[in-house]
């Protein structure tokens, strides 16, 4: 959460699939150019060593080849790099690379070419030490207060500090109570090493103490890097911080005393050189790296902290001064230039699957997909697409069947075509010239047959169940239109001679309505039982709380029984719910078919069809609060009162603006019949409100809430009361 975004000054993407950690970044004038321009040195776990000298002409520009001074692959992976005066006899800077089992020191030199891109850089091995233990990290500095030289101390994975005085090995020492390595740092002011051990305390060891803790017997051994046990090593001071540390940094300014900064997993500590805490700050995020540096204001210290929420925060002591959003999680930070190592990129292709739940034919074969996502930089995006699935997914060809209860006849105004041309994906190539019947078996198991008349231009769709005719009829009409459009016929028209099979349609409505009534019944029963359950539980709780134990009087049995009743009722309600869901799908199919027939019958145009669809299919799903029946009834009544009204008396009819579950479907059935009747007599629908009848507000259906990732912090919705409270 930040107002700001960090602007990139320069960046380089390093290799492919390479890994980096804390120690892999270093800043120094490594080629000793003397111009004071610092170079960025990066080592990777794959063994690549790269040196950059960024000089972008304008901020935000990506790397140009001249910026890269060197790239070599070493034989071992690089776990840390440091720069210092590691070679005896010279005060020039050299590069030390720590490998799992080896320490190598290189010198880097540049040979100027005639043009800029002709410059050459060389890496020359000066010396190397083989290590007998796996190294973990290292620290360098003028141990013991030497002048003009830097020594190196390596911490191994099993807790041995190995000291190297430039080309020679000096001694090694076990850290007491060691289990896992912590960060290590050297304080030149007090000549001491500071680490955070597995005991979760900051431990300070004087170099002197480390060196003296060896006794004579072990010195011979230690020449071969064997462990020098010696006198029991004790820490100069310790401070329990109660957590493991990510990093330790030591900052000493010229005037003030030096401070030890410890970045823990959950807190940020500043400790004085004598082991007393100066301040601590609780961090409310997971830090990844930090870097303290001297502030411009006397007596305060600024710290840069990077965290795993892609933020870079700047603190002045404990006060947050600035926060900025970064594109990635930083692993290492260095001042002068900040470099952030990249994570893997993200692709933006989305694959989704469509499943058919249950063995019920779907009401629609199309759908919309909307994907809302947040890009890596935090910008929300939405992508949308519509799709239509092929009919073949929900039905398969079967032999046609003859006598069935439900049938519809569609007329056309063109000469009959072979069904083979219309449904090439369902009919195998046959010798016969004309195919007059095709059978379809839907996933629900019911069969639908399409028959083409041999002489006239009629087609009959017949099946066992009314609503299952929908998919096939729709497909047939659509394919006809496509077929004749391909042939270039412009005035093709399908028609239906009527009457509309209202009886079948009403039957489906009734079935759906009955299930809704059932659902409400279960709801009431469940609420009743739940109240009973709570009452029993309350009594039990009071009884248990009572100081003098009283008999339970079979309350526990009662509670058990009520609980079982609640479960059984819940199961029944769930079952009813799924039946309701199926019935609603059926209802949708039937409604679609009803609308299609109405359109063909009265040859309605697109505008009329749209209004009809909005009237009859207002909901994506119905709920106990707002169901299909009342919505459709309200909409149909509205049409009957406005555009389909016969007399002004009807317009004046008042209706309730409240949508509630009706007692039965008689009214709805009457209204739908009336609508068909009026349309048959030439009535047409329109939305422009003529007449002054108040339009009842029909609220849109509940939209499905999409799951979305949300920030952890959320402001609570504020609520406001009504003025008139009695």
């Amino acid at each position, binding site marked *: 959460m930040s107002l700001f975004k960090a602007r990139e000054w320069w960046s380089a993407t390093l290799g492919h699939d390479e890994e980096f*950690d804390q120690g892999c970044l270093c800043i120094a004038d490594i080629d000793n150019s003397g111009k004071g321009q610092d170079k960025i040195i990066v080592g990777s776990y794959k063994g690549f060593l790269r040196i950059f000298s960024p000089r972008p002409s304008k901020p935000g520009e990506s790397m140009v080849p001249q910026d890269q001074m060197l790239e070599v692959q070493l034989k071992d992976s690089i776990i840390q790099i440091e720069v210092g005066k590691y070679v005896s006899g010279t005060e020039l800077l050299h590069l030390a690379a720590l490998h799992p089992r080896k320490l190598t020191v290189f010198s880097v030199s540049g040979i100027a070419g005639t043009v800029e891109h002709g410059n050459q850089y060389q890496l020359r091995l000066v010396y190397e030490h083989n290590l007998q233990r796996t190294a973990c990290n290292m620290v360098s500095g003028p141990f013991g207060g030497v002048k003009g030289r830097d020594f190196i101390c390596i911490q191994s994975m099993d807790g041995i500090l190995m000291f190297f005085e430039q080309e020679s090995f000096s001694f090694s020492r076990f850290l007491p109570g060691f289990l896992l*390595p912590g960060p290590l740092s050297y304080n030149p002011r007090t000549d001491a090493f500071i680490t955070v051990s597995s005991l979760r305390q900051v431990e300070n060891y004087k170099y002197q103490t480390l060196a003296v803790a060896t006794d004579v017997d072990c010195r011979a051994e230690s020449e071969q890097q064997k462990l020098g046990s010696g006198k029991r090593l004790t820490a100069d001071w310790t401070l329990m911080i109660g957590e493991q540390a990510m990093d330790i940094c030591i900052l000493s300014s010229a005037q003030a005393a030096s401070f030890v900064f410890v970045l823990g997993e959950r807190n940020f500590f500043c400790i004085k050189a004598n082991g007393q805490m100066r301040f601590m700050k*609780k961090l409310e995020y997971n830090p990844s790296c930090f870097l303290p540096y001297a502030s411009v204001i006397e007596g305060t210290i600024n710290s840069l902290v990077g965290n795993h929420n892609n933020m870079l925060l700047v603190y002045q002591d404990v006060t947050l001064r600035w926060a900025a959003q970064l594109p990635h999680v930083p692993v290492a930070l260095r001042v002068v230039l900040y470099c952030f190592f990249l994570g893997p990129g993200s692709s933006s292709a989305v694959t989704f699957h469509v499943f058919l739940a249950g063995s019920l034919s779907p009401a629609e074969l199309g759908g919309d997909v909307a994907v809302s996502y947040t890009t890596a930089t935090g910008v929300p995006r939405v992508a949308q697409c519509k799709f239509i699935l092929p009919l073949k997914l929900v039905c398969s060809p079967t032999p046609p069947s003859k006598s069935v209860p439900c049938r519809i006849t569609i007329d056309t105004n063109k000469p009959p075509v072979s069904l083979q041309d219309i449904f090439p994906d369902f009919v195998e190539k046959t010798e016969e010239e004309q195919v007059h019947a095709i059978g379809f078996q839907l996933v629900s198991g019911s069969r639908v047959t399409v028959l083409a008349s041999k002489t006239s231009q009629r087609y009959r769709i017949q099946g066992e169940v009314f609503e299952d005719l929908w998919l096939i009829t729709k497909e047939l009409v659509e394919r006809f239109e496509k077929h004749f459009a391909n042939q270039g016929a412009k005035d093709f028209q399908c028609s239906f001679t009527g009457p509309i099979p209202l009886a079948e349609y009403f039957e489906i409505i009734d079935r759906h309505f009955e299930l809704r009534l059932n659902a409400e019944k279960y709801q009431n029963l469940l609420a009743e039982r739940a109240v009973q359950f709570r009452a029993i539980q309350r009594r039990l709780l009071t009884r248990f*709380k009572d100081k003098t134990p009283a008999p339970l009087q079979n309350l526990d049995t009662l509670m058990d029984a009520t609980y079982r009743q609640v479960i059984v009722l819940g199961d029944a309600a769930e079952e009813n719910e799924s039946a309701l869901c199926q019935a609603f799908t059926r209802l949708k199919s039937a409604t679609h078919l009803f609308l299609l027939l109405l359109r063909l019958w009265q040859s309605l145009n697109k505008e009329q069809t749209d209004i009809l669809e909005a009237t009859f299919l207002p909901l994506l799903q119905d709920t106990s609060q707002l169901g299909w029946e009342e919505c459709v009834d309200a909409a149909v009544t509205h049409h009957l009162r406005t555009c389909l009204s016969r007399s002004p008396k009807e317009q004046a009819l008042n209706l309730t603006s409240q949508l509630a579950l009706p007692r039965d479907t008689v009214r709805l059935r009457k209204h739908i019949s009336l609508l068909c009747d009026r349309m048959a007599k030439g009535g047409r629908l329109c939305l422009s409100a003529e007449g002054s009848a108040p339009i009842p507000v029909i609220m849109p259906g509940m939209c499905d809430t999409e799951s979305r990732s949300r920030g952890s912090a*959320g402001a609570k919705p504020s609520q406001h009361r009504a003025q008139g409270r009695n």
Partner: protein
Amino acid sequence: MVLDMDPLFLAWSYFRRRKFQTCSELCSEILEKSPYDQAAWSLKTRALTEIVYVDEVDVDQEGIAEMMLDDHAIAQVARPGTSLKLPGTSQGGGPSPAVRPVTHAGRPITGFVRPSTQSGRPGTMEQAIKTPRTAHTARPVSSASGRYVRLGTASMLTSPDGPFINLSRLNLAKYAQKPNLSKALFEYIFHHENDVKNALELAALSTEHAQFKDWWWKVQLGKCYYRLGLLREAEKQFKSALKQQDMVDTFLFLTKVYIRLDQPLAALNLLKQGLDVFPREVTLLTGIARIYEEMNNITSATEYYKEVLKQDNTHVEAIACIGSNHFYTDQPEIALRFYRRLLQMGVYNCQLYNNLGLCCFYAQQYDMTLSSFERALSLAANDEEVADVWYNLGHVAIGIGDSNLAYQCFKLALANNNDHAEAYNNLAVLELRKGRIEQVRFFSGYLYGILCMFRLN
């Protein structure tokens, strides 16, 4: 070229970069080869703990059983200004509960959802029985179920060969002797296994081994006691830890104990002591502000929230709380600026747009009002949020005099959340205006039912 690296080093490096799954897999490989590798074992416990870690300071939900069986209360009716459970005793001159809405428990609504504010809004038993107990909708029923929401994920981690550490076979006395192992092990038992009893035993043994000189173990003992409801014991341990070493976390834990004991004044004192040791510490300042807010002392709360913002100007909670306070004291224009700031900072959710919409409406910037509510509706994550937005839209409708629209809005609020008492109330008022007494009686019947339900709980 594939370079061989020490697996333990790699695991350690992954741990640093918070790739805990990879780290734990690598450790498992090491442990297969050498089962007694303590370093790998310890690293794996730490990685598994980190995966499910929730800051214990933030975990706080009082279950129905704790509220019912509270043995710590001394007096049934506390003196005014000394208790969090006695609502309606405003001392800070803040708006009265008639203006600023309160939660079901009678505390003023804050501008920010935090764990403890949810305890004031317990779901009814019916709801608890009806709703599926997923990690998202879990509501506290009793102390045993659905309490530590995120910790539930621990049981979902499938380890092919059973649990990583079999606690019942662990010789805790032996591990207490190894201070470098025991702390990681304790956190594993406490956070990952959520087994407070064993954690307590280990902590007790370890603090003895450390000769009672390690404050960390005392804090852990306190945490265990707190979870077990032994508040006085927890208080003793935290106080003893504070004597040894001042830590921010210890202050916060002790504050939690006092809040649970319903001693807000002691908690405030303690936090102020903490501020003497750690001046300008944001978490302590926030703690003070929260307590003042719960005590209905809004003026002081706002002062401290402002102090928080001086230290950390990206603090979402402080901005949201100051904003809502301005809103309820009739300064919607200023509240609007705070909420806009949140929007600029990247907070993007239903609640924020809802509040923006309300502020716009009361600040008479009507062009923005409806579009804000529309966005709020499209961002709503659950039915309760949808209900709240519709409820507020109903208010806007009342404000513009469209009682038909208001009626529909309140109905929609009820459709999404059927125990929305305010919506019932307002519907009843609307019906009364129309003169339909029967309907009024119907809605007030519902309202009465809801009120009774919460009184009972």
